[in-house]
């Protein structure tokens, strides 16, 4: 059959196949660094499509009977901060006409909404949760948004930080939740105030929120996890 001159005899081909397999696996490890470049190239387009997909209207919700408290896992990059509810203030600053320092009474005086939605973690798990509290849009409206505002920078008591596009922040199901599953928010879940929405991955939903700052552009600090490589838009 194949002569020795044949550069791809059956024997050689099999040898190449066997020899090539480990090289492929080693190559896989070397490719890990390339992933970041792949993300840099493709993420802007993905994020643009995600923003286009995201409507301004309400999304369907779950039935309260579908809530599964045990499914909701606790994630925090830096433990649980201690916050005195009496001394708590939510600062709204930046590109606003009336900067605010809201206490919990002021937040409770705003119209209260409940969302029964799926909380999806970037790790892959999810949990149906009933969140309630005022809409983030109502809180921002108190402060009077400047037309220049395009992004919201969110500060937390545990030094976690996030930034959102304004359209997602103004979504009717984006809440500053003070209650979870009908009871006051537990400390580990972000008491007294955390973000909740059906349209973002869990790492966008800051716990222990203490400050909202309206900005015209995204700064260098885009989010604790985003600055380490996670996608910024993170829409669902």
């Amino acid at each position, binding site marked *: 059959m194949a002569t020795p001159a044949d550069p791809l005899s059956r024997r050689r081909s099999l040898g190449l196949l066997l020899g090539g397999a480990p090289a492929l696996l080693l190559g896989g490890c070397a490719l890990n660094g390339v992933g970041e470049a792949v993300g840099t190239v493709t993420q802007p387009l993905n994020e643009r499509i995600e923003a286009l997909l995201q409507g301004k209207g309400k999304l369907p919700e779950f039935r309260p009977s579908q809530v599964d408290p045990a499914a909701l896992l606790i994630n925090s990059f830096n433990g649980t901060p201690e916050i005195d509810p009496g001394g708590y203030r939510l600062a709204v600053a930046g590109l606003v006409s009336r900067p605010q320092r809201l206490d919990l009474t002021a937040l409770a005086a705003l119209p209260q909404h409940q969302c029964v939605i799926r909380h999806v973690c970037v*790790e892959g798990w999810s949990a149906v949760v009933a969140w309630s509290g005022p809409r983030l849009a109502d809180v921002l409206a108190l402060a009077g948004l400047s037309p220049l505002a395009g992004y919201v920078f969110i500060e937390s008591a545990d030094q976690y930080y996030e930034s959102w596009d304004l359209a997602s922040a103004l979504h009717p199901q984006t809440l500053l939740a003070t209650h979870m599953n009908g009871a006051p928010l537990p400390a580990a879940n972000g008491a007294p105030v955390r973000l909740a929405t059906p349209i973002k991955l869990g790492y966008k939903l800051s716990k222990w929120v203490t400050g909202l700052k309206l900005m015209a552009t995204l700064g260098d600090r885009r989010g604790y996890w985003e600055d380490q490589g996670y996608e910024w838009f993170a829409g*669902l």
Partner: protein
Amino acid sequence: MPASTKRPMAPIRYAPLWTRAFHSFNLLVILLMAASGLQIYNANPVFGGRGGATVPELFTLGGWLAGGRDWHFGVMGLYAANLGVWIGLLIRQRHQRLAAMGDLGTLRASSNTPKRRLAVHRLVYTLMLIVLGFSLITGLAMYKPAQFWWLVAPFSFAEAAGHDSWQVLRVCHLATIPAIALLLGAHVVLSWRVGGLRLWRSMAV
């Protein structure tokens, strides 16, 4: 094998370059999607959650969760486009044969072994397309569960039995990896039996 060892071999008829390139590119894209998918799996194993067994690092791509997601969502566009072209080509080429009960009819009626083998092989890669299409649907449903809630809805069939639609989706999406691995194995074995090394070489780039 049909090829005679006594006659001098005819020169290998290579498939057109674009076919070979497309074939290799498909393999590469599927490997990248599977390996990066297993990297994402390891962040929270579908079976066992945080305490569950993880996939060996050898089979993963990306190094950590964000790296795996970079690859998975970076390549998904190519994956979907490839799949579209592939399905389009097959529908165009096989429309008559499939519609006229070509391969299925052969399997039912013919006792000609090489002919049956060829028919089985064509059915195998038709099944591959169905599995890959299913992975795309389950993947999209988990990528945008809020916007594509209607895509998630069909997977809530097991909710009465206590299985959340999300877990069903995760299992379905993961199951496409062993399914495609089996079909890939069948594809390799069958192509060997249909055309031997000559067929392999005719498709190599």
